[in-house]
């Protein structure tokens, strides 16, 4: 690079963008960094929003990625309440909502993803909510008073976590899922059934194979969810959690290659060498599975933030990690290592009925592709190593609890 101190502009001050700024400084980058975010608060952790934050078990200080003074100390120009509206790749500038033009030498797009909106009558009623950011979480928290009835449209992680938190706050919760089971897109049937059963024992009503037709309201406020079979589920608030779409428009409009996310390589570089993209907004290669896809997860945001920082500083790009995910519901900690592509066998290790087990997903040659662990952190951690090493394991050894995970991970 000819310019030893390029000016870096980061669009999006979420977990990915905030981490990229910090990682650049950790890697010794001394050039100017501008971090632009449309929210009113500095970068914070989003995962607790559906859990500890809703339940009032954490505070804003703990949610923040860094102490408030960090950005000034690290000489990071943090611009909050600022929306980037366009990128001019020729001029290498970003335009903001207040028509300011900000020049860059290198740009990192970290615009995240937004809640998918489904066309439903009544979506504009009060107390019809989504959950992506702190402002959303505060609105949800305000309606989750004891006795309130929450209808959750979509049985994905956010829906299940919100339902669990709602129960913890003394609310009624009904999950409405279009597919035959919750977590249909992201977990195997055994795991879906386990979570479904657990939620039901915790008093959550789960309607599967249920198509929402409309939201009904009284005095402008949601009062019920009407299903296509005519059933009305009365509620005081409805949370719509039916997936996320990548915020790729600002890149696509500037002519950066996108296809269900901003296309990047393993160094998080886009089709424009001066532009990187990281986090939920990207579509990235996963060499482990010889595929590319979107990964909506904190670990992915961190990994790509480090990759971009390394690339910008001319350092080696860290080796790609095994994708991982987690979800906390009630006293259950679900941790998932890997993604079960091309698998045809599931081996259970542990005791499903006791709520402490791991599901190993194997290819026909015994290669472990993914491990879904419930209250089984050792299986999760060992699973990450096993997947990383592309180990082929004997199903009988996996299921045998007298064989330690350390022994399994040793091959």
């Amino acid at each position, binding site marked *: 690079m000819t310019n030893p101190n390029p000016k870096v502009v980061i669009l999006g001050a979420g977990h990915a963008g905030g981490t990229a700024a*910090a990682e650049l*400084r*950790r*890697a010794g980058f001394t050039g100017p960094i501008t971090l632009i975010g449309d929210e009113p608060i500095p970068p914070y*952790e989003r*995962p607790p929003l559906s859990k500890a934050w809703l339940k009032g078990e954490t505070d804003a200080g703990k949610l923040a990625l*860094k*102490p408030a003074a*960090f950005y000034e100390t*690290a000489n990071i120009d943090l611009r909050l309440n600022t929306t980037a509206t366009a990128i001019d790749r020729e001029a290498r500038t970003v335009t903001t909502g207040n028509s300011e033009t900000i020049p860059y030498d290198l740009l990192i797009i970290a615009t995240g993803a937004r809640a998918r909106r489904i066309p439903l009558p009544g979506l504009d009623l009060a107390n019809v909510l989504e959950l992506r950011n702190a402002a959303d979480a505060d609105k949800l928290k305000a309606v989750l008073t004891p006795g309130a009835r929450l209808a959750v449209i979509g049985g994905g992680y956010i829906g299940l976590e919100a339902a669990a938190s709602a129960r913890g706050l003394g609310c009624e919760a009904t999950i409405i899922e279009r597919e035959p089971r919750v977590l249909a897109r992201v977990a195997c049937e055994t795991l879906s059934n386990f979570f479904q059963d657990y939620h039901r024992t915790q008093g959550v009503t789960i309607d599967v194979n249920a198509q929402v037709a409309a939201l009904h309201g009284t005095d402008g406020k949601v009062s019920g969810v009407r299903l296509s079979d005519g059933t009305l589920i009365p509620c005081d608030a409805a949370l719509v959690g039916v997936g996320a779409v990548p915020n790729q428009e600002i890149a696509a409009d500037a002519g950066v290659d996108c296809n269900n996310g901003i296309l990047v390589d393993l160094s998080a570089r886009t089709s424009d060498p001066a532009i990187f993209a990281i986090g939920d907004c990207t579509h990235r290669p996963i060499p482990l599975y010889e595929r590319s896809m979107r990964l909506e997860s*904190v*670990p992915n945001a*961190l990994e790509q933030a480090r990759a971009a920082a390394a690339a910008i500083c001319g350092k080696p790009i*860290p*080796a790609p*990690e095994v994708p991982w995910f*987690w979800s906390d519901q009630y006293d259950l*900690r679900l*941790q998932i290592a890997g993604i079960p592509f091309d698998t045809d066998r599931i081996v259970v290790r542990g005791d499903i009925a006791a709520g402490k087990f791991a599901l190993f997903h194997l290819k026909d040659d015994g290669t472990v592709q993914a491990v879904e662990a419930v209250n089984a*952190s*050792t299986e*999760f*951690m*060992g699973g*990450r*190593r096993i997947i990383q090493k592309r180990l082929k394991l004997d199903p009988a050894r996996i299921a045998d609890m007298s064989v330690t*995970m*350390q022994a399994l*991970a040793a091959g």
Partner: protein
Amino acid sequence: MPTITYIEHNGTAHPVDVPVGKTVMQGAVDNNVPGIDADCGGECACATCHVYVDAAWLDRVGLPEAGSQEASMLSFAAVTQPDSRLSCQIEVTDALHGLVVRMPEGQH
């Protein structure tokens, strides 16, 4: 406020004041010290805040209990030593003023 010195694998030392009640991991993250990643945010679930505790401090800091979650996570970390700890599991107290920890070559 207790001072903790974090020493990178390349020998660079970072003395940092960390409030009592925070963890040694949080002290590193809050001050952007290189070498501690803490991907899981302090849940003892990822082993990316691995440190080696200086010999002079090992008695006061202690080692993870056998069979604990921390010991289990550490068993999968790269290059562990008898003085390995996960820094998210070490709470800062006044008694740890002056603590020295060293970081492994990598956390992944």
